[in-house]
């Protein structure tokens, strides 16, 4: 049985799980309503207590929306951050914290780091199986956008063909990220450092002209300004990696004339080459790691938080539904005379039971449906805010986990709705008629 289940495609497993979750509730409903037509009466009850009903539906919708929104948002964040790291096959840096280097090189959150030296870079770039090794040299900025020194190979690797213009050809040219604050043809002088403390006039007299613009990547690199690494070294008054009479840009660099780089992105010619290169450059004077591995470990640590969030979301929903059902029990007391009259004119107990249950079910299903829409809307709004703040493209859409959450919620609460229905038919007929 387990093997049969494992052999099913993921979508089929998800669909079957959703059906299995919702089935008990629907089955209970089918049994309660079998052979009866309580819906006209339920419709009348919904209209008669429209305000109270709307309040109950809103309560359920908010609790469902909260759970759905949280789940979708967490997944969107996880996928967005993973997507942003996909192009960073293997990073080689000086020994230190993999997380710090990943945040700096992939998410452009710079920090002070030791440098990979010229000879080390030459060894990396010349290793067997390396398609290209791109320096990633950060530290400068312009109007809040990071200015990163690298090579033309990296630009093409990161974003594919340019959306506009051409790649830099001299150390005074630049390529702008899709949403960087400089247009093609525009010029800028980088500030030394980042944020409010950046020294705006430290590189006075140096300027880059933007010759091209990258297509969007969904990563913080969309706001970056990419310049030849030689340009970064030159504006800092350092050697530019080439002999004085050599005006070209890009590798190979003269090891003795290369000032160093905080990180190197290594792309292997073959997939297996990345693993061999990681093994080769994991040593006492260098650190090689896959950003995907580090990210996956970080996301793994958050799994417990995610489980706790899911549990809290379910508990919130159940508590809200419980309070709604208590409210319904009170409402049933208010309409006890009408229900008693129904029984007095010959309606069977099962019919009264079905009316009260169907009334509760209508509120639960409306609230769950509205909650799904609310959760989707909330997740989209939060995603947009997170994208604006982090530059990591976060797209939160509804998926199977949300469907399972709502299916389980509906099933459980439809069962819970049997309680007010049972209490309604247990009420003393004569007392209710005299009320």
């Amino acid at each position, binding site marked *: 049985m387990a093997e049969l289940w494992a052999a099913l495609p993921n979508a089929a497993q998800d669909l079957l799980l959703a059906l299995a979750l919702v089935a008990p509730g629907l089955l209970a409903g089918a049994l309660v309503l079998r052979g009866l037509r309580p819906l006209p009466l339920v419709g009348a009850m919904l209209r008669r207590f429209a305000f109270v009903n709307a309040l109950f539906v809103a309560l359920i919708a908010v609790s469902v929306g909260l759970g759905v929104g949280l789940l979708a948002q967490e997944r969107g964040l996880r996928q967005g951050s993973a997507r942003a790291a996909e192009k960073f096959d293997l990073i080689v840096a000086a020994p230190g914290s993999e997380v710090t280097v990943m945040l700096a090189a992939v998410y452009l959150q710079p920090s002070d780091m030791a440098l990979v030296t010229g000879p080390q870079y030459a060894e990396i770039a010349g290793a067997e199986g390396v398609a290209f090794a791109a320096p990633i040299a950060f530290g400068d900025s312009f109007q809040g956008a990071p200015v990163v020194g690298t090579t033309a190979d990296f630009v093409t690797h990161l974003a594919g063909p340019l959306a506009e213009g051409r790649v830099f050809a001299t150390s005074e040219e630049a390529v702008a990220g899709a949403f960087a604050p400089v247009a093609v043809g525009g010029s800028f002088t980088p500030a030394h450092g980042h944020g409010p403390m950046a020294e705006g006039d430290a590189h006075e007299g140096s300027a880059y002209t933007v010759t091209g613009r990258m297509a969007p990547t969904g990563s913080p690199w969309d706001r970056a300004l990419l310049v030849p690494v030689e340009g970064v070294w030159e504006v800092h008054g350092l050697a530019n990696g080439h002999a004085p009479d050599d005006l070209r840009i890009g590798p190979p660099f003269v090891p003795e004339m290369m000032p160093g780089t905080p990180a190197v992105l290594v792309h292997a010619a073959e997939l*297996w080459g990345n693993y061999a290169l990681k093994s080769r450059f994991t040593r006492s004077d260098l650190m090689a790691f896959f950003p995907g*591995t580090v990210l996956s470990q970080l996301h793994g640590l958050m799994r417990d938080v995610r489980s706790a969030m899911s549990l809290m979301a379910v508990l919130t929903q159940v508590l809200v539904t419980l309070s709604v059902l208590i409210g319904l029990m009170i409402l049933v007391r208010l309409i006890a005379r009408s229900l008693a009259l129904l029984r007095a004119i010959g309606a069977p107990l099962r019919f009264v039971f079905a009316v009260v249950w169907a009334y509760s079910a209508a509120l639960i299903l409306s609230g769950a449906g509205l909650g799904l829409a609310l959760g989707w809307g909330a997740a989209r709004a939060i995603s947009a805010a997170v994208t604006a703040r982090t530059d990591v493209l976060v797209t939160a859409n509804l998926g199977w986990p949300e469907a399972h959450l709502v299916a389980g919620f509906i099933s459980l609460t439809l069962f819970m709705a049997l309680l007010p229905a049972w209490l309604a038919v247990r009420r003393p007929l004569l007392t209710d008629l005299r009320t």
Partner: protein
Amino acid sequence: MRACLLSLLLIVAAPAFAETHDDHVAEAEGLRVVHVWTPATGKGSDALFYMEIENSSAAEAMLTGGEAGGQELELVGFSYGAAGEAWTVLPGLPVPAGAELDLEPKVLALRWSSVPMDLVPGAELEIEVEVGGQHLHAHVEIGEAGATGHSHAGHNH
């Protein structure tokens, strides 16, 4: 029943396969496989074996995979992206002369697909690691389901 017998045979017979006095080491021709371990895995799931491979010979050795319980072990590499985690089969991986290759969680592993029995914590089994044309018989330590390393990780053998 067959799976149970196989499981029992692998677990009980494991000490008989020892190639050295140290259960954590298998070696031949300058190649050593050390600290082989796997997290506990349920029957029918894929088991991932991690280890350290040392090549003290004068020639590069190619790690190509292995064998367990008569089934092939594939060399797989980890990747992580928007679609989630994935293990891709690799054709082989060179271990340069005088170098070491670590098969570690979320990087590299030997994969035993659809294991025929439960791999329970504390038990040991035997696998064959194919490296440099050698078939090294190595003992596997089965850790807890969430284990992240061999119990003797960091020890010198």
